[in-house]
């Protein structure tokens, strides 16, 4: 279990306790700070976090506290102003975004931002097809995720014509189909009804069981209670609390 102690107003990793299992750390953030251009107030300040390829972690906090910025820094969409992100022990700067994409699946806050194909099935199979997977395997996975997220009736539909909740399901399915080693979801439950939330919970647990870490940002207290094993609370761009629940 991770152990944390408070240092200089923010929670930082206790290196002496952590070093034994350092080899299994998948994603590591060391003293990360980030400011948006033209903003005097930093969005993130001295963030120190580590993630293994296991369990489900929730990132919570009030609006504008830096949750989405943190997830974008974690997968290399945003470059930190200072500090270092390490993926599988290597500095994230050494990876191209596509290389990060093969290791970390990222579901955007707004699903419309990540849908770009002309049909739902093409959208789900896009990553696999472009990585040169066998068509039969692509079809098998696409069929599975279409059925799992109850998207089969929309197989040939234009993704951007779907409702918000349906787009959300397509975006999640498209990322899951790539079977990344680590999954980051920004507000995945927005627009989903209770039944679809339970389906999402089930698949996140399944992903976590397959030794793949999951991090999600959410305001959905019920979903966090059911899903999260670890909860990171952000406030004013700083980690206020990092606790294990189970």
């Amino acid at each position, binding site marked *: 279990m991770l152990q944390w102690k408070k240092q200089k107003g923010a929670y930082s990793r206790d290196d002496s306790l952590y070093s034994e299992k350092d080899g299994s750390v998948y994603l590591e953030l060391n003293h990360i700070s980030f400011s948006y251009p033209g903003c005097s107030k930093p969005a993130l300040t001295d963030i120190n976090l580590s993630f293994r390829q296991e369990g489900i972690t929730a990132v919570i906090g009030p609006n504008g506290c830096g949750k989405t910025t943190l997830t974008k820094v974690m997968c290399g969409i945003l470059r930190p102003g200072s500090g270092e992100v390490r993926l599988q022990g290597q500095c994230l700067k050494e990876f191209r975004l596509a290389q990060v*994409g093969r290791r970390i699946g990222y579901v955007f806050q707004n699903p419309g*931002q990540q849908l770009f194909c002309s049909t739902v099935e093409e959208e789900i199979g896009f990553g696999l097809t*472009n*990585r040169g997977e066998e068509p039969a395997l692509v079809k098998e996975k696409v069929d599975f995720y279409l059925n799992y997220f109850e998207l089969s009736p929309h197989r040939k539909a234009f993704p*951007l014509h779907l409702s918000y909740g349906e787009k959300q399901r397509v975006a999640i399915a498209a990322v899951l189909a790539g079977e990344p080693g680590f999954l980051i979801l920004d507000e995945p439950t927005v627009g989903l009804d209770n039944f679809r939330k339970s389906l999402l919970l089930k698949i996140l647990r399944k992903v976590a069981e397959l030794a793949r870490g999951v991090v999600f940002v959410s305001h959905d207290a019920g979903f966090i209670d059911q899903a999260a094993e670890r909860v990171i609370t952000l406030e004013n761009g700083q980690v206020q609390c990092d606790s294990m629940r189970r």
Partner: protein
Amino acid sequence: MAIKLDPRTKLVITLGITSLAIFYDNPVKLLILLLCAAGLLPVFGVDFKRLACSIKPYLFLLLILFVVQVVFTPGGDTLLAWGPLRLAGTRGLVLGSTVVLRLLIVIAAGILLTTSNSRDFISGLVQWKIPYEIAFMVSVTIRFLPVFKDECVNVVTAVQLRGVEFKRVEWGKKIDLFRCLFMPLVYGALIKAQELSIAMETRGFKAYPRRTYLRQLSLKTADYISMTAVLTMVLLLMGLEISLV
């Protein structure tokens, strides 16, 4: 300390600079004009860092334009050849430099317009008797350009995050990939236009034939001096160019 001028004055300055950029055909004159335009920006509170940031996304496009002009423009002395194949000539070099400098001037002059907010632009244009609908369309275009740029970045990021490397995709598949990049942008723009029109209708756009404004812009002495100076200089330079030809 940045100088504060009426948005209409900035529009006149921008039009003056871009007109000269179109009028001139000589790279040396265009370079001088570019330096003047770039030198003008700090006066309006725009630093060179912002200018560099604005130009950076277009560098690749500018390079391609330059290479195409240099390689495919016939005439002039040969500067570089590979066996019987001519790769670069003097005329191509001049034309390539002209095109690139012209675009850089347009970008630099365009930045000047971003130093006023869109509401002031509408107000200024309407006070110049330009129909409100047209002024509003101009302001909406200016307002949504950064949003469109952000959406371009988002789509490219989303495609890359699915593990696709643009540089390594075969040429045949690249066309399909570009379709993926453009479709959400075009569709998104149409949806935004539709949603914006509904939002405007619900807020009573054109509910009354005559609009009134809380804030009225007024041209000050500095504006009149700037506009007169720019117009006089542009006309003089154009006249001089014509008389030299």
